[in-house]
């Protein structure tokens, strides 16, 4: 980093401080950099992207998360300009880019395969984009140097890509795509080709680099842990549609659908009927649970509607003692215990035949587990830890 790069107090990209919900609130004031408006993309009969509207704000690290074939990569390729939307508009930095070819867009992409030019040195790869803009030679040299320093590849400038390890290639790809200072950097499964350990390390590195350069990042990934680790906000996609857009925290604690609850983390899901719906509470009866479920807030659904109760395993408690509440507990037999070191997961076969998974933390090294196979136990949860979704 040269001195010229370290002046001013402009805040375009400094990561807002505070907890994540707070960050989102602040972000709402940041101006939108990408506006996707009712975009549809079909390939023959197949609808890859279906009426997607989305706003991504400046300086965000935004993740598109979904299984394979959910349309996330197609959406990213439309942002890059490799696919033209069948309908809808895409605005980048306020300008309509829907029909603009990739080489005229102010965004750059980091490819899943890295797509490094095999016949060019690391240096030449990074300089490629700058050369297309016919920048003066000296400037190109400076910027390449900066970029290689940023990804710590200075000593490798003269190497060819096939003389680099996977992790080094990944960083060359990053440097190359950042060299033109794009308004938005698109990353297509940027870490998929790395092994697990390197991937976890690189996730944080990537976030660090994003913080330093302040560019808006849009990351496509199928790995929910990766999305949670890196992103400020995540859009969950399924069958070409966006199901929910929110912070990782909100997606986990306030999923809006069964799909999101099940996709984003592990969950115990019980189907039930709404039997009482007041402004300050609701009551749900489920065939899977012996006692009714009580939640301390109202939901907007008709009485008798089918709803689903979603309970995260770590929010359930197990005990040999029967809770003295009329709601929010059940009993069953311990069928399996999965010991994972830091936590253990208990599989409890409820009397209804349904299965409940409960995780507990193993806080004491010497502690003897007091609950074991075939024990009869009670499972309970707090009403404010209960998520109710209607679809």
């Amino acid at each position: 980093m040269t001195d010229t790069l370290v002046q001013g107090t402009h805040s375009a990209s400094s990561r807002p401080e505070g907890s994540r919900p707070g960050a989102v609130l602040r972000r709402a004031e940041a101006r939108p950099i990408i506006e996707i408006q009712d975009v549809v993309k079909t390939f023959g009969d197949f609808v890859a992207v279906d009426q997607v509207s989305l706003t991504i704000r400046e300086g965000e690290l935004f993740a598109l998360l979904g299984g394979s074939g959910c349309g996330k990569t197609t959406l990213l390729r439309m942002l890059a300009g490799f696919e033209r939307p069948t309908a809808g508009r895409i605005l980048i930095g306020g300008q309509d880019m829907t029909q603009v070819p990739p080489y005229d867009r102010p965004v750059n992409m980091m490819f899943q395969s890295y797509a490094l030019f095999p016949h060019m040195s690391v240096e030449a790869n990074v300089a490629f984009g700058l050369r297309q803009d016919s920048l003066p030679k000296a400037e190109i040299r400076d910027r390449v140097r900066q970029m290689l320093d940023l990804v710590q590849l200075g000593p490798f400038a003269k190497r060819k890509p096939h003389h680099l390890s996977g992790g080094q290639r990944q960083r060359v790809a990053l440097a190359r795509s950042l060299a033109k200072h794009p308004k938005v950097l698109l990353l297509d499964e940027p870490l998929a080709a790395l092994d697990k350990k390197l991937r976890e390390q690189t996730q944080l590195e990537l976030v660090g680099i994003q913080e330093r350069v302040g560019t808006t990042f849009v990351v496509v990934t199928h790995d929910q842990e990766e999305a949670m680790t890196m992103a400020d906000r995540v859009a969950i996609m399924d069958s070409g549609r966006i199901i929910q857009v929110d912070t990782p925290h909100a997606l986990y604690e306030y999923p809006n659908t069964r799909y999101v609850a099940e996709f984003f983390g592990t969950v115990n899901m019980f189907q039930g009927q709404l039997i009482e719906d007041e402004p300050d509470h609701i009551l749900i009866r489920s065939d899977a649970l012996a006692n009714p479920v009580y939640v301390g807030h109202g939901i907007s659904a008709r009485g008798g509607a089918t709803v689903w109760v979603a309970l995260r395993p770590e929010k359930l408690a197990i005990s040999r003692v029967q809770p003295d509440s009329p709601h929010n507990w059940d009993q069953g037999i311990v069928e399996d215990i999965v010991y994972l070191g830091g936590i253990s997961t208990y599989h409890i076969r409820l009397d209804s035949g349904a299965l409940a998974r409960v995780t507990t933390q193993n806080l004491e090294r010497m502690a003897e587990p007091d609950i074991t196979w075939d024990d009869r136990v009670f499972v309970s949860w707090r009403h404010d830890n209960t998520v109710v979704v209607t679809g």
Partner: protein
Amino acid sequence: MKRSPVFLYAMLAFGFAFLYVPILLLILYSFNESRLVTVWGGFSLKWYAELFRNEQMLNAALVSLRVAVTSATIATVLGTLSALMMGRFGRFRGRLLFTGMITAPLVMPEVITGLSLLLLFVSLETVIGWPAGRGIDTITIAHTTFCMAYVNVVVQSRLVGLDRSVEEAAMDLGARPLKAFLVITLPMLAPALVSGWLLSFTLSLDDLVIASFVAGPASTTLPMVVFSSVRLGVTPEINALATLLVLLATATILIAAGFMWRQERERERVATKALKTERGGSHTSSSRP
């Protein structure tokens, strides 16, 4: 497969013996003093000397070389364009017809290709006056036509193996399609272009049947001369010529193979080294402020 290795390797040895013994004998007898193939009359280079005194043979070799270089070059250009059409353009009008036309020469009996091209040249001459007579040009056109089919196969298979996103990356970084093709795709296709050219060159140099149909009186190619002298009986000069051709091909192939092998080894070596440094020296974001 427990007991088969013996059988398999016996078959392999038999196959290679079958392929190579005739060639080796040819080379051996090219140094034979005696005119008789089966009698060893002592070591001599006299057939080589005679070969280089044979005007007709040398002229034919020049014609063949000219045709081979020109047609291999044109075929490489046309075959590469065809491969790009097939591999990159998706659907276009008449794709099916084109696919048929570009693959058919691979399996077309040479006599048919030769006959049909000759009839074409004769008809064209009567209708538009071109080509005036037949000669090097008509042979070149004929060879180009069937060679481009081979180049198409070679380049297309390389094109299929190329990561498409490399071209996309170039465009993403601001290169227009033509520039992305010239700066990125073409260099990556280079090995295929070289082998396509060499293949065309060899095929053209080797062709007897098609050239016999479309050649004119003044343009006799090397295989045509060889063929007519072989028909008259075994001539040791041909052994000498064969030896030279075999050595040339072997040298080319071995150099190419050796080059590729070295590159491969180098790549492996460096890759292992790179991997080791990555595993060993952790590069946890020391860059972070």
